[in-house]
């Protein structure tokens, strides 16, 4: 009789798995990756491959050291690697790209406890770290010459990104050109916002991301940039806005799980992006905006928690203590 299978219920299982979802996100990034390679050539390809390899090796090493099973088959490390690569300009020094990936996957994810336990978006954490390292460790500066947050900032020595031109009041490229095929010096992901949108649409269609975070974040950026006298369309298409809204802020692990929390989160990131872009010397704010809000996720979730189906509704005839808030208060107090 032992040949019968015995497990606790439920006995049916939906098709979704983490690996399939991660693979879908990687798939969604392929169009923009191809465009980046078409425009920037071998440089772009090398950067992408370096990051993918660095991600895989980093994860293998960290898990080996921590005596955990290898988890490359959940594709999350490769996804982080690809995202890091797309946030660099094509010609970045290979070891800088590799270092950013190492920090993202190794410290940002594995040392935090592995996929699911990381509080900050690993790709952004890695990318921002290599930007911050030379400002913290002065003696390292010569080695990081020219490594700015290129997607999120101006590479002053070469051609400016549309966003930088926008801020400096320069001539802007045509909308269509900017949307589909931009040869700017910014990050690879900036080469074709249209391809990022297509990828994001695919994720929405597959149900891996919802509309709340992208819509509210982009909405906040459009409204606020218009109010402040900027060009909303440019703020939407330029820099990392779209990649951030569709692929980074929507990261399952590091965004709020509650519906209202997602809306607060999206709006807050949009507001931060505008603050960074309009009121600070830093040109770009998407990376910092998302990372800052990542830290607030537990708090946002606490604020926006919905009451249980079984929670007694406050009635007019009865006094307050039956309300959700009062119940929670006493539970938390002890």
């Amino acid at each position: 009789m032992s040949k019968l299978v015995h497990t606790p219920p439920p006995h049916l299982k939906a098709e979704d798995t983490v690996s399939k979802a991660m693979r879908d996100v990687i798939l969604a990034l392929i169009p923009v990756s191809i465009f980046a390679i078409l425009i920037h050539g071998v440089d772009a390809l090398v950067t992408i491959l370096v990051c993918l390899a660095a991600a895989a090796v980093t994860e293998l090493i960290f898990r080996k050291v921590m005596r955990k099973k290898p988890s490359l088959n959940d594709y999350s490390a490769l996804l982080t690697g690809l995202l890091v690569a797309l946030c660099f300009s094509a010609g970045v020094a290979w070891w800088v790209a590799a270092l950013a990936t190492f920090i993202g996957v190794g410290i940002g994810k594995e040392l935090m406890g592995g996929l699911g336990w990381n509080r900050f978006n690993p790709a952004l954490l890695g990318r921002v770290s290599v930007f911050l390292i030379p400002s913290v460790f002065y003696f390292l500066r010569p080695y990081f010459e020219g490594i700015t947050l290129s997607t999120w900032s101006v590479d002053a020595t070469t051609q400016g990104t549309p966003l930088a031109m926008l801020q400096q009041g320069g001539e802007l490229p045509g909308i269509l050109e900017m949307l589909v095929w931009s040869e700017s010096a910014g990050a690879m992901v900036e080469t074709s916002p249209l391809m990022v949108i297509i990828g994001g649409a695919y994720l929405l269609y597959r149900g891996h991301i919802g509309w709340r975070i992208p819509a509210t974040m982009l909405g906040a950026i459009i409204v606020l940039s218009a109010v402040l006298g900027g060009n909303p369309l440019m703020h939407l298409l330029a820099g990392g806005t779209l990649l951030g809204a569709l692929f980074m802020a929507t990261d399952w692990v590091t965004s709020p799980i509650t519906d209202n929390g997602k809306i607060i989160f999206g709006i807050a990131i949009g507001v931060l992006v505008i603050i960074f872009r309009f009121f600070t010397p830093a040109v770009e704010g998407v990376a910092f905006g998302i990372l800052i809000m990542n830290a607030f996720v537990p708090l946002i979730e606490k604020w926006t928690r919905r009451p249980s189906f079984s929670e007694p509704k406050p009635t007019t005839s009865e006094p307050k203590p039956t309300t959700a808030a009062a119940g929670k208060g006493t539970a938390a107090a002890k």
Partner: protein
Amino acid sequence: MEAKTFQGGAHIPPYKSYTEDKPIEKLSEPSEVILPLLQHSGAACKPLVKEGDKVKIGQKIADSDEFFSAPVHASISGTVKAIEPRPVPTGGMDDCIVIEADDGPQEFEMKQVRDPETVTVEEYRECVREGGVAGMGGAALPTHVQTSPRQPVDTLLLNGAECEPFLTCDHRLMVEKAEELVKGAEIMMKSIGANKTLFGIEVNKPDAINAISELIKNRSDMEVVPLECKYPQGFKSHLIKAATGRDVPRGARSAELGCIVRNVGTTVAAYEATIYDKPLIERIITVSGPKVSRPGNYIIKVGTPASHILEAVGVTDLEGVKVVLGGPMTGLSQTDLNVPVVKSTTGVVVLPPEMVREEMDYMACVRCGKCVDHCPMLLYPNEISIYAEAGMYEDAKEWDIMDCIECGICAYICPSYRPIVHMVQRAKPHVEKL
């Protein structure tokens, strides 16, 4: 008519096409039945017979003095072979009366002993108790307990949602026994003092909706409420919410809600217990699965071993198969096929190896939020599972773990394969002690 529903829930593949058009038929008689002394929620019965006694079909063989209990009857004629612990569907062993068939009558004689028009509420309550009727939708609460509520109840809500995949026994019953159902509802409505009966039926059973609608078209006190096909529509609290719009706060009894929910099968069984003095000795069970050669809705004697049923429907190869008693979302998989089906067994579902969820390692929660989107109790299964797993029972309680109805959607949908329901089940006793 617009289908009503509730917030949350999930559309799970129904797998009902195997049996939804199969008319109810009798399964071959077992040579032996195993009747657990506890088939309901409440106190176990004490045997009224001893080893070697001759018993006749329908004879009461075990009873209890407790209010929360339901007597057990012989489902076949024969000899009491043993009174001993045997494997039961809920797992483990429990006291059972084992009867070996003889050549006596194995068919209950349906002779009308009371007139549905004149039967009194008192007679009804007595018959339901004496007939050992208990909830047949799964919960198995002794039915007589709720036939005389102390507080007034305005609505009788009949549960014909049948939201579990594969199961079609209630569906066929509503189609083929619509008349008994409506008559049974009328007496039950009288008994609980309600002035309205609602039939909650998912819209994937149009023939059942039509059959009942036709019978009650001239009545103002009965109404069919079409429900959206969504799991767990048939769970009591969600049925009440969908059909009546009333909230179901924790701890509220049906009577306090002004509403009593009854499974349609139970309603018919209570009717037959009253009009024919027929105790609950057999029931309709859906036997189904993609590889079952003769799937169907069978009338099966309570106490029939699962092995007999599987043999009768042509299931021979059991390698890597999962046999579930009940529906696949909440039913229990079995390790020993000598277990009997009981009063609350709705189905025998045979899942072939390719449908059996592999015992793979589960991952950490990736906070995708799918369980939160679909949780019908509007809980946060992600948080609950993390706290339950870590033994942080205070926190699990704070996140309302005790409200969980263990419907299984979270574990069904989790891309990290987390066995959330199992974690909840293991944590609940600890949380209760806090």
